[in-house]
């Protein structure tokens, strides 16, 4: 009988009613409780001290407080929590303390390219070398990097210039584990190298002279504290290459509202910081979908593209957010070369595409310091190589440095010839490649080889020949490098409904000058078709 009682005790242990739990208590108001006035946009005001006092009187232990989400993080028993639920100023009690935080890295895949070529492409796909040529290095921009560990960042050769130049302004651990913890303790260092690393000859990231604030965390509550700390330090750009494991939520939770980490990132964005967050590496598994906190509103979630195909990496997660906002917003090379304390290594993940873009944004901000955070956000989207086309795998594409370099130049040279044309015949719409566009492109660069081949080009479909010739001819290597993104003849097209939500989207590799045709009657009125080819987007409303 005694043993039975013992087993019963074990059972009750797991179901114990008086167990201490950690949770967030969200408040309804920030102002005077008695006035019942809800003050909006008051995120900079501290949590109401009266509420805190009442909470403490119930006997709960207040661990942390957040002015942004107007909440306190507490440890309490079930009885105490039931009591708190009855308080009139308590809006909600949220249990998200045990969510597992991990990093957005994927298994390395064997890359056909040499390390030096990947290094070149991870910068040149954003035309980053143009920033480097102009000596734009993110100087004066404060970047906050939040991660789970920065092991050996002081001993990393590729980050040495940050240490000697005094660019690491502060490093703080919000967990008890310090700056170096766990299996993925190098992750933060690798991410930092994608922001600011440079070898003797080439850059790994673009923001080599920005000022950095490093923070480590293990729990959502610590993430919130770290973001608020960044804000106090005047950080302008935040890079987050971590995620919450998707086993903790369903797809409908990713609406930018439900998870606290997501809300915190959105609040940080509201408070003037430009946030970059990895969209996730679940594209290749059954989940396929983005992960939190990439669903936050007002942030830029970043997907990954392959440096070989210029298209979505197989691991990069798909959007949109559950409330149908565009996710990911932008992409960068995620199959990258990164540095840690030991050596340069090839690494895969949206963890690495995110800092590449954050570094790019720092350079853009240095170039245009008068831009507000919101206008920089908009310009970054517009700088995407696919813009105004978008889809839920590539977002608006890879932002281009040229856009920012020419931002204030009033008269920019434009090519009037569109690469796509269409014809309407009865109920059908036929979309073709415009050969004139290629002739124009070739004539601009002709010095013999192209000119003599123009006849052949006419005979053998201009676009295919154009693509191959660019790669083959040594004389045109430089041009081909500049045209990396347009080297392949990819056509992106989507069909959006009247609310802007994509019903479907495709990427085609052109092998024929007739792109495709559509029956107009098969498309509902109000829908919009966008076709993007060679950076030009054709839009047709139905």
């Amino acid at each position, binding site marked *: 009988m005694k043993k039975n009682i013992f087993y019963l005790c074990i059972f009750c242990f*797991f179901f114990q009613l008086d167990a201490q739990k950690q949770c967030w208590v969200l408040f309804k108001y920030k102002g005077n409780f008695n006035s019942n006035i809800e003050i909006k946009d008051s995120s900079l005001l501290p949590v109401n001290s009266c509420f805190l006092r009442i909470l403490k009187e119930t006997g709960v232990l207040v661990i942390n407080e957040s002015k942004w989400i107007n909440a306190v993080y507490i440890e309490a028993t079930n009885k105490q929590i039931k009591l708190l639920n009855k308080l009139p100023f308590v809006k909600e009690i949220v249990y998200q303390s045990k969510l597992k935080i991990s990093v957005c890295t994927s298994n390395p895949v064997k890359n056909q390219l040499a390390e030096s070529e990947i290094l070149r492409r991870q910068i040149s796909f954003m035309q980053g070398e143009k920033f480097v040529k102009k000596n734009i290095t993110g100087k004066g921009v404060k970047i906050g990097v939040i991660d789970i560990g920065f092991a050996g960042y002081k001993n990393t050769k590729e980050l040495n210039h940050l240490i000697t130049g005094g660019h690491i302004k502060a490093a703080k651990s919000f967990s008890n584990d310090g700056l170096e913890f766990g299996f993925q303790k190098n992750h933060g260092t690798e991410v930092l190298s994608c922001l600011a690393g440079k070898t003797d000859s080439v850059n790994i990231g673009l923001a080599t002279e920005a000022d950095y604030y490093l923070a480590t965390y293990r729990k959502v509550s610590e993430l919130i504290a770290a973001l608020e700390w960044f804000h106090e330090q005047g950080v302008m750009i935040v890079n987050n290459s971590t995620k919450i494991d998707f086993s903790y939520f369903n797809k409908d939770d990713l609406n930018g509202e439900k998870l606290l980490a997501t809300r915190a990132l959105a609040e940080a964005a509201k408070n003037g910081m430009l946030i970059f967050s990895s969209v996730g590496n679940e594209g290749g598994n059954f989940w396929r979908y983005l992960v939190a906190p990439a669903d936050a509103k007002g942030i830029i979630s970043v997907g990954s593209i392959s440096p070989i195909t210029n298209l979505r990496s197989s691991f990069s997660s798909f959007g949109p957010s559950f409330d149908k906002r565009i996710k990911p917003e932008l992409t960068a090379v995620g199959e990258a070369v990164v540095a840690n304390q030991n050596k340069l290594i090839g690494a895969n993940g949206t963890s690495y595409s995110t800092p590449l873009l954050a570094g790019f944004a720092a350079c853009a901000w240095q170039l245009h310091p008068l831009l507000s955070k919101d206008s920089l956000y908009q310009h970054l989207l517009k700088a995407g190589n696919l813009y105004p086309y978008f889809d839920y795998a590539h977002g608006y594409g890879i932002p281009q440095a040229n856009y920012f370099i020419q931002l204030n130049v009033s008269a920019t040279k434009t090519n009037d010839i569109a690469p796509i044309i269409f014809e309407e015949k009865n109920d059908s719409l036929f979309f073709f490649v415009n050969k004139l566009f290629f002739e124009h492109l070739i004539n601009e660069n002709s010095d013999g080889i192209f000119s003599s081949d123009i006849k052949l080009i006419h005979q053998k479909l201009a676009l295919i020949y154009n693509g191959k010739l660019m790669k083959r001819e040594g004389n045109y290597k430089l041009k081909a490098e500049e045209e990396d993104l347009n080297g392949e003849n990819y056509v992106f097209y989507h069909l959006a409904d009247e609310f802007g939500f994509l019903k479907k989207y495709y990427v085609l590799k052109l092998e024929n000058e007739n792109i495709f045709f559509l029956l107009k009657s098969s498309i509902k009125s109000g829908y919009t078709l966008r076709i993007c080819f060679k950076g030009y987007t054709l839009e047709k409303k139905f």
Partner: protein
Amino acid sequence: MSKTYILLFLFLVNSIVFSQKLILEELPEKILQEPIYGLKGKHFVFAFYEFNLLGNSKLNDTITIAGFRSSVQNVGLRYKLKLASKMSLITDFSYRYKSAFINQKDNRFPDTLFYTKERINFNQICLAAAFRFLYSRKNIFFGKHIDLGFTAAYNFSSSRITKQTITTVNSQFNKQTIKNYERHLNYIFPFEVDPFISFGFEKFQFKFQYRITDSFTNINSINIGDLPRFIFGVNMSLIGT
């Protein structure tokens, strides 16, 4: 009819003239749906391993066993069907090996002799069904769900092993061990039904079972007692899809 030909013609034109290499095709509405298969899907199949201990009881007819040497182990496949957002149906098909070491101090089973060691083994094929209820974290301390169901098992083989060490004076050895195997035991009840409750996570859960059927039939109307009815242990998922 003519419309069919036109459509066929258009299809041919499309496939010949407009032939492009499709790199990516996505329907975003599909991505927003919860996955059909897998851990978070409507259907989930995975292998599991379960390790349980038998809990002794002081009831009159219960045979006392050596608690930590006796075990019940299951290996099998589990299929989970999501019925609603907070409710699923679980079905298991498994092989179960039950081994009970009979304590010789105060019980004799099924004869009146004392042995140095005595063990009874069961090999069973099990079918289990349960309803899984997901609960909110705020109400219960441990895990994400609770399962309520029962297991039906068929004993396809059983054996009893006894070991007796005898001290012999005249032999060249001081001790002699007699090990005896008995199979096809005629006093084993062929079926077993165990209602159970389990709670925890998808990949790890605690399980508590209570056997409602008897393990043994009576031999010549003599009650030979029963094994402990209470079984508790852990269930771990291995690989799944």
